[in-house]
């Protein structure tokens, strides 16, 4: 059988398992925002096909699966038919605590032939704050509960002790239980479909190898046309008044791309640290976008990208550094700095920087006798492009999640929106101006705890080729007795207080 056919069929296996996960999960993050992904992995741990819907999951399996298999091998743990291993340890899985990873071996005629790997964003993974995102966290232990690799299934039977431990610590146990069942269901669907492939076509390892070769060939066909050399770039991540440098030396050669982060800030006592999986994802995202066109998400493409990140830095922290926002904000800046380096190699092809923040808004409290919590992200402007202006009011880089309709949010939470408009004039000026950010404003109708996790509040997204930077974001609280600008922090709001959030515009392209 031709490898192209096996390759397409395998892509659909990942896709179908992904649907099984989404359909039976309960977290809105998974069902509505598609914050999950599933991969088919061969017996050697190479990604053969992956269904992912938001870029931050791109590449995190490449690191996560290798880490987990290495760890199991080191401990001498064998995976038998019907076993499943679960972990949310970001230092293994490669994202953050909310992303629970499950690895499920696929046996065919008594032989291990593949794995199904899945990852899903649980609404809560324990810890002191709703949603396990804590702007004040100094270590991972103030964010949530770390579950090291455990066999959650043993020969098809659920491991009650492990399950009990997880459900006792994740603050929304019923939801977590549903999400876990969904992941296990997706694993079974994926495994059954992989076995169908083997039944139908015989051992397809050879076709899979060709599919991986193809991914590599296709990526290199483009990268090989880029001018070889070393391209330096630096961007900064703003946090609590500090500007943390992220430095990149990007080497392009015929054989691939190496991103070296020597010179980047040391890890910080804040949730901003990005584990290596996140850094790899963000670099891969930028490279893949620059390649453009169709490219299969498999080991072949991943093998073209190498990341060197010194240990103990913001982009490869050492436990117990907190990592919750590394996934959200640092990932955005790593993508930005990679684009900046690429713009030097490929002048005229890379846009200026987009808003570069997910502008995470977490709210909660007690209202009408009930605990409520609400999380949203807000888009901004995309950067001006060589052939035209940036786009206004849109998510860029590592996220693409939908907004919550105002009419739905107002029905369910004690908030009343006062504005949702394009923030005119926030895009950087240029021959092709940056897209404008968003103004989103609301009053709270009950005492509320508000947390913001954001960046680009101090320096705006950069322009290119003489284009001006976009305006930085701003969060303002209007209350009786005054107006106050806040940063990434947690504040208490009184009934009637108004919060006005302005997101950054994109940088401009070319002299105005």
């Amino acid at each position, binding site marked *: 059988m*031709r490898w*192209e*056919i096996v390759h*397409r*069929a395998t892509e*659909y296996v990942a*896709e*179908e398992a992904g*649907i*099984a996960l989404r*359909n*039976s999960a309960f977290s*809105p993050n998974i*069902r*509505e925002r598609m914050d999950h992904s599933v991969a088919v992995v061969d017996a050697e741990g190479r990604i053969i096909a992956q269904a992912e*819907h938001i*870029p931050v999951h791109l590449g995190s399996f490449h690191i996560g699966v290798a880490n987990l298999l290495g760890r199991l091998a080191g401990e001498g743990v064998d995976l038998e038919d019907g076993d499943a291993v679960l972990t949310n340890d970001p230092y293994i899985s490669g994202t953050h605590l909310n992303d629970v990873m499950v690895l499920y071996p696929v046996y065919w005629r008594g032989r291990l032939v593949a794995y199904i790997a899945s990852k899903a964003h649980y609404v809560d993974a324990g810890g002191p704050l709703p949603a396990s995102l804590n702007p004040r966290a100094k270590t991972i232990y103030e964010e949530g509960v770390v579950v090291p690799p455990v066999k959650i299934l043993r020969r098809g039977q659920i491991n009650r002790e492990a399950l009990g431990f997880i459900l006792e610590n994740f603050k929304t146990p019923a939801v977590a239980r*549903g999400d876990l069942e969904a992941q296990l269901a997706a694993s079974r669907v994926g495994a059954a479909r992989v076995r169908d492939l083997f039944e139908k076509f015989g051992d397809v390892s050879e076709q899979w190898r060709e599919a991986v070769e*193809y*991914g590599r*060939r*296709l990526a290199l*066909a*483009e990268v090989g046309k880029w001018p070889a050399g070393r391209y330096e770039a630096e961007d900064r991540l703003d946090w609590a008044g500090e500007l943390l440098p992220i430095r990149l030396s990007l080497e392009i050669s015929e054989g691939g791309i190496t991103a070296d982060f020597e010179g980047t800030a040391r890890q910080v006592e804040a949730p901003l640290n990005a584990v290596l999986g996140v850094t790899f994802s963000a670099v891969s*995202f930028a490279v893949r*976008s620059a390649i*453009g066109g169709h*490219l299969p998400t498999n080991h072949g493409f991943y093998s073209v990208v190498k990341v060197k990140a010194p240990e103990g830095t913001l982009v490869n922290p050492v436990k117990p550094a907190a990592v919750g926002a590394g996934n959200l904000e640092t990932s955005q800046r790593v993508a930005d700095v990679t684009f900046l380096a690429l713009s030097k190699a490929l002048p005229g092809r*890379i*846009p200026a920087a987009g808003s570069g923040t997910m502008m995470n808004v977490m709210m909660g409290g007690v209202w009408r006798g009930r605990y409520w919590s609400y999380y949203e992200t*807000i*888009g901004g402007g*995309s950067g001006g*492009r060589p052939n035209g202006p940036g*786009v*206004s*009011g*849109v*998510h*860029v880089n590592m996220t*693409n*999640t*939908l*907004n*919550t*309709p*105002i*009419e*739905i949010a*107002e*029905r*369910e939470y004690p908030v*009343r929106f*006062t*504005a*949702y*408009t*394009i923030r005119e004039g926030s895009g950087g000026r240029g021959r092709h101006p940056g897209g404008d950010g*968003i103004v989103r*404003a609301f009053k709270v109708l009950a005492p509320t705890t508000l947390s913001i996790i954001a960046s680009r509040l101090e320096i705006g997204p950069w322009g290119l080729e003489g284009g001006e930077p976009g305006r930085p974001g701003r969060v303002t609280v209007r209350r009786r007795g005054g107006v106050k600008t806040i940063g990434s922090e947690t504040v208490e709001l009184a009934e009637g207080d108004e919060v006005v959030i302005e997101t950054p515009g994109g940088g401009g392209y070319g002299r105005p």
Partner: protein
Amino acid sequence: MSLVGVDVGGTFTDFVIVGGDGEIKTLKILTTPREPERAVVEGLSSVKFSEVLHASTIGTNALLGQVGLELPKVAFFTTRGFRDVIEIGRQNRPRLYDLYFQKPRQIVPRELRFEVDERTLPDGTVERAVDLREVEELARRAKSAGVVSVAVGFLHSYANPSNEEAAAGVLRRHFEYVTASYEAAWEAREYERFSTAVVNAALMPLVGRYLAKLDDYVKARGGRIYAMASSGGLITIDEAARRPVQLVESGPAAGVVAAAELARMLGERRVISFDMGGTTAKAGTVVDFEPAITTEYEVGGESHRGRTVKGSGYPVRFPFVDLAEVSAGGGTIIWRDAGGALRVGPLSAGAEPGPVSYGRGGSEPTITDANLILGRIPSAIAGGRMRLDVEAAERALAKLGDPVDVAASAIKLVDLEMARAIRLVTVERGLDPAQFALMAFGGAGPQHAAEVAEEMGVNRVLIPPMPGVFTSLGMLMADFKFEARMAYPRDPAAGFEELERRLARHSPDYFLRYADVRYAGQGWELTVPVGADASRDAIRKAFEERHAATYGFKLDRDVEIVTIRVFAVVKRAKPRLRDPPKSGSPEPSEKEVYFDGWTEASVYVREELPLGFEVRGPALIIEDYSTTVVPPRWRATVGKLGVLELRL
């Protein structure tokens, strides 16, 4: 009585004429895209008719920027502070890895969005009444800016439309075309409701004038004309002119309607319709003779693996026949990419220049060329009037490798693509494809049906009579369907009765009731059919069953009925299909055909096959505009109404 179905496509306008004697004729005329009524009138002038049923892509084409169908200047009036809801949309980008992505072009530029002081709360309380003097003043400003059509959308108007209604009243004194969002789509979620209103406002002048011209012509000839809606039902010209938003995508819906009606005649309760033509393949599900509908649709949007890509088009909240679309058809191009992989589509040679073997200038090999060199279609088609150039097809395929190997692999790839996409959209909706029969039509559908079915785990295939023009027949089989809906009904039973009272003027034969329901706090709804017992408890029970079937679990939580919807159905007399002859002994010819190797296949002429006749694969059954491929291990039986049933 003579019925004419007209399907105005981008390239051709297709006519199906059914005379009083049940005889079916077809006609094809080139469309003039900037003046779509021309081909319609030209075609009608040559036939007799009492009723004309009409489907068109005029709305979609205008939104996609068809030259000559320029949209008018549209203004949008909304709640102060929320001017850009229609621009921000859901804040996502339609393509993840495309640095040059664009949002769809804004129908209403920012300077024509007017904010008005007013506010309604989620429970329907009017916190601030609309300032009508302000509306009046802004209306004058819009008028002097050359605005022709206006839409008005206020927050929470689904809960209480009084502010919106009052504003629309003022606007009607200034403009001929006014759309209030609660009338266009009475449901929650501001972006989708506002977008529906804006699209409707943009289409009203254009579609209104077009329909009026056709109506005048048909009336002058003593006939009547009705329009096909995207829900798969027919509506009156007045209703279509008032809410033209329901006309977009009405053409493809007709195929599923045809499948549903044929399923009803055959008593088939679970059918997947599979319509494969020159450029795309479309699949829909029919359960208990009703096409599945969806309210999530984006006009002019893109689709990926059969599903609409969010943010790629203009959302329209109206019931649409639920279709999964794949870029795969007879004209789909076979190629190799920079990585050396054999690829099929998404580019298509379409009807012009078409496949290489058509000899009309096509140079890239297509799926039709692959089928031809493998012997799966005869080298003379369209009743022998058109000869295909086998050698040219083979030469074109040889550029990609061994022509037979390339052709066979390309067909496997395209079958896989279609099968998996259809499988995904059925599995996604909680349906098990193994329980369905695949009903295949369109020019290319019957060639691929058996292998597509096998790939998706289906072991029965039905081929309707005249599969090449079956979609156009669908319109003649449709019933009238008028829609009304309501958001967050306090008492659903009373709500349904209220909606049915509103629709009573159409004198329906029966009503279809649906409810969009979710668990409190969920961000999405499931649509469930509702019966005579429309109590909250009965709806809850139906919802929980559907939820369990779709997602695999139930929850101990309150349910919320978000929207209820009623269709008033008025039945129409259907054209009758004839049974095949009772006897006959068809003589097959023999032909070399490729199925994992060359093999001798029997070739039958479909109209010669008598009722109950059985054909064993490998075989081909040929007719004027289509060929049915019966692979080895499959058997085909001629059933009533001439339907071919293929079984594995």
